[in-house]
């Protein structure tokens, strides 16, 4: 097929390694991409995040190997699945003996089956590019009424310059199952590289899934993730998203609640310095009654960084007795940092309790003085207050090994102790 050069999407993918076989799923995505364009800030969902600059660059899909020792988490004791530049690296991965889970490569799945489970998921130009050109990923199945014996660690590394990583995963939580996924994102010598990852999942009835996402890529790469989960009745879904890395980050997260008595929780901490841009874009779509959701995102922006929060809760008609809470709080540490916050409620049922709050400000001057009056230096006082500010989000990470790892990251990156 000849390339139409004025089509920006086709231009963008022109250096990608073409997939060996065009499966039905890929074919659909390729078709859908035809005639699509990248969003501008005139598109409401991308109002505060400009991608034009990053999608004009060219990227390659390059299989590589990496030293992942630095990125493994001590004492996490997890199934470790390693993806370098979006390619699954079996040799670096360790899958433990665990009767509760099964791990398959996405490309080894039955095509009909896979096309079925990803059918009807909402897509945008980036998730479609990923779908059409994905280079690897895993399909995790947590078996009925079983609890995974170990956390499942998706370890992603960008290796080398101007590469794009199109990894794509699916986590299938069968009825009554329970598991924790840890997804980490790192980079090495990877200026102007691009993570374009998709993580999907289905949490069946009575199942419970926790995801901890930690993105600490270098401040010269771009990160767009699309995460989409469907919850069935009486299920639990918790995701904690911690972002300190990448020059431009867009965390797109959608949870469709398709059953009663579900609980959905999303927490996020984003800490930006220099010229980092961090966008958290979330949606919780409540279709059934008697569900609760809670969302708490906190940002600390320093330097010339920009923080964005755009969270939406939709309560559909007849989805009664929904309690939904949304909170976005931001601290600006420097004069040149900025924040755009857009929490949204769209409610079509009446018997609901929904609320949201959003604050932006500096650190509390009175609190700083109080600490200084107790002998704490101004710098330590600020550090304490910042730590206190985001601490309750980090506390949502119950996995101690991971929490220790996060604390170390903050200490190394910002000199912040908890």
């Amino acid at each position, binding site marked *: 097929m000849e390339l139409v050069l004025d089509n920006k999407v086709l231009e963008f993918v022109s250096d990608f390694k073409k997939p060996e076989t065009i499966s039905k799923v890929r074919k659909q995505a390729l078709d859908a991409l035809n005639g699509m364009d990248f969003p501008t800030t005139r598109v*409401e969902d991308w109002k505060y995040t400009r991608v034009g600059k990053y999608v004009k660059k060219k990227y390659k899909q390059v299989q590589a190997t990496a030293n992942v020792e630095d990125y493994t988490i001590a004492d996490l004791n997890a199934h470790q699945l390693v993806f370098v530049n979006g390619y699954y690296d079996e040799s670096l991965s360790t899958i433990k003996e665990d009767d509760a889970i099964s791990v398959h490569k996405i490309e080894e799945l039955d095509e009909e089956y896979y096309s079925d489970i990803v059918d009807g998921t909402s897509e945008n130009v980036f998730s479609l590019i990923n779908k059409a050109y994905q280079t690897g990923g895993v399909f995790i199945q947590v078996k009925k009424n079983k609890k995974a014996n170990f956390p499942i660690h998706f370890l992603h590394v960008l290796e080398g310059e101007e590469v794009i990583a199109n990894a794509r995963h699916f986590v299938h939580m069968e009825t009554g199952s329970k598991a924790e996924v840890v997804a980490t994102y790192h980079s090495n010598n990877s200026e102007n590289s691009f993570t374009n990852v998709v993580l999907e999942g289905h949490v069946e009835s009575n199942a419970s899934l926790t995801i901890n996402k930690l993105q600490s890529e270098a401040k010269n790469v771009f990160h767009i993730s699309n995460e989409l989960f469907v919850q069935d009745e009486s299920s639990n879904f918790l995701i904690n998203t911690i972002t300190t890395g990448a020059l431009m980050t867009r965390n797109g997260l959608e949870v469709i609640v398709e059953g009663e008595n579900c609980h959905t929780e999303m927490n996020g901490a984003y800490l930006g310095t220099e010229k980092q841009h961090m966008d958290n874009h979330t949606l919780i779509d409540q279709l059934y009654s008697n569900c609760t959701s809670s969302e708490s995102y906190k940002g600390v922006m320093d330097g010339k960084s920009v923080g964005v929060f755009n969270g939406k809760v939709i309560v559909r008609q007849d989805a009664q007795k929904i309690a939904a809470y949304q909170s976005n709080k931001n601290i600006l540490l420097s004069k040149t940092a900025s*924040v755009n*916050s857009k929490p949204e409620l*769209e409610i079509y049922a009446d018997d609901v309790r929904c609320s949201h709050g959003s*604050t*932006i400000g*500096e650190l509390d001057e009175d609190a700083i003085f109080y600490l200084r009056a107790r002998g704490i230096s101004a710098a330590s006082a600020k550090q304490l207050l910042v730590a206190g500010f985001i601490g309750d989000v980090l506390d949502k990470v119950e996995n101690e090994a991971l929490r220790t790892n996060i604390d170390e990251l903050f200490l190394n990156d910002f000199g912040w102790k908890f």
Partner: protein
Amino acid sequence: MSNTYTEEDLAKNLQEQEYKYGFTSDFKSDTIPVGLNEDVIRLISSKKEEPLWLLEKRLQAYRAWTTMVEPDWAHVNYPKPDFQAISYYSAPGQTKKYESWDDVDPEMKETMKKLGISMEEQQRLTGTAVDFVVDSVSVATSFKKKLGELGIIFCSFSEAVENHPELVKKYMGTVVPHTDNFYAALNSAVFTDGSFCYIPKGVRCPMELSTYFRINEGGTGQFERTLVVADEGSYVSYLEGCTAPMRDENQLHAAVVELVSLDNAEIKYSTVQNWYPGDKNGVGGVFNFVTKRGLCEKNAKISWTQVETGSAVTWKYPSCILKGDNSIGEFYSVAVTNHFQQADTGSKMIHLGKNTSSTIISKGISAGQSQNAYRGLVQIHASADNARNRSECDSLLLSDRSGAHTFPYIECKNSTAKIEHEATTSKIGEDQIFYCQQRGIDSEKAIGLIVNGYCKEVLNHMPMEFAVEAQKLLEISLENSVG
């Protein structure tokens, strides 16, 4: 208790509640044929005997409008008006101007009475000066003399063009330029009349100034323009009431209101909007697409208060540009939607000056199958050191077929700012109703109490007489609610 009045009953009553002000006045109108082109604009201008500079402004706006598209980002759904099917000028038949209240057509006086605004009485009891606009043409301005003594100019827009062209020229379009948005451009091209008010330096306007707008003629659009200029150190409280008769087609209302609050001045602008909302099946009603904006210079203040119960579709964001240091912007709003009404309303607070502060209090009440959205923007520019904003947006749902939506946009580019936004959406509290009942208050009264209390914070910001009227409008939703 078998005869307990429930929320369902309230919702039902609300649904059955019909529009009170639905009647057409039978005075003769001078209406031009439908359609819009440059000739129509020339015709409007010549009918109004306007100076050339104003015609040029109109044509400029028209040309800009033809390049614009109707906005579609609001959370509303309606058949787009056919702008060639509207008559852009409809004046009551008499062309002569009224020298005094006694000259006013008795039929029109009757109309005002039906609206509950007996002007004589208002003049006597409240000392309110009223400018009355029917189908965009101003017919009577009372108390002109008394105001004149203080140097206050309060007159129809046309009179201002004729008698105070320098002021109109200086301020018109400075706050809402004709390129601002689709409807503002349309208004700037075809506006027929409206009100003008100027308060000289240091003068505190001793009475409330009031304008009543009414769409009367079928198949017309109303495009009035209001310009209020408060010169340095002055104060004015300005009231605006709106009604329209029942008609089964949609009528278009696209007004522009510009406020200029110079150094140390204060403008308080209150609106009770009760345009015809359409019937309970969603037929008819006014499309209310209004651009209202005020500019604050140093230490100036602008306060918008609105009670919105009317219109089929509302698209309205009274805003403040806080340009001067230490200036203050306020927005207090109650918006009630019922049946198939749709409202997308809120405010924009643009902070440019240092130590500027703004407050947004919005109360939405949705009944029937209506959709009620708050949309607001708080923007802190890098220059706005120590800016403060507090926003509270609450939505009350009275029906499981209605919708309540909250879309705040908060943009902050200055670290010394402090911004707090909070919003809640809930059903009227069963526990509150029960608590009242337990204290001996019947459920109907309880609901009345709760809804009134819910809006109190906003009503408190209205001038007394107006608040009473606004409260009455709200009560319409609650009366006859004994099951």
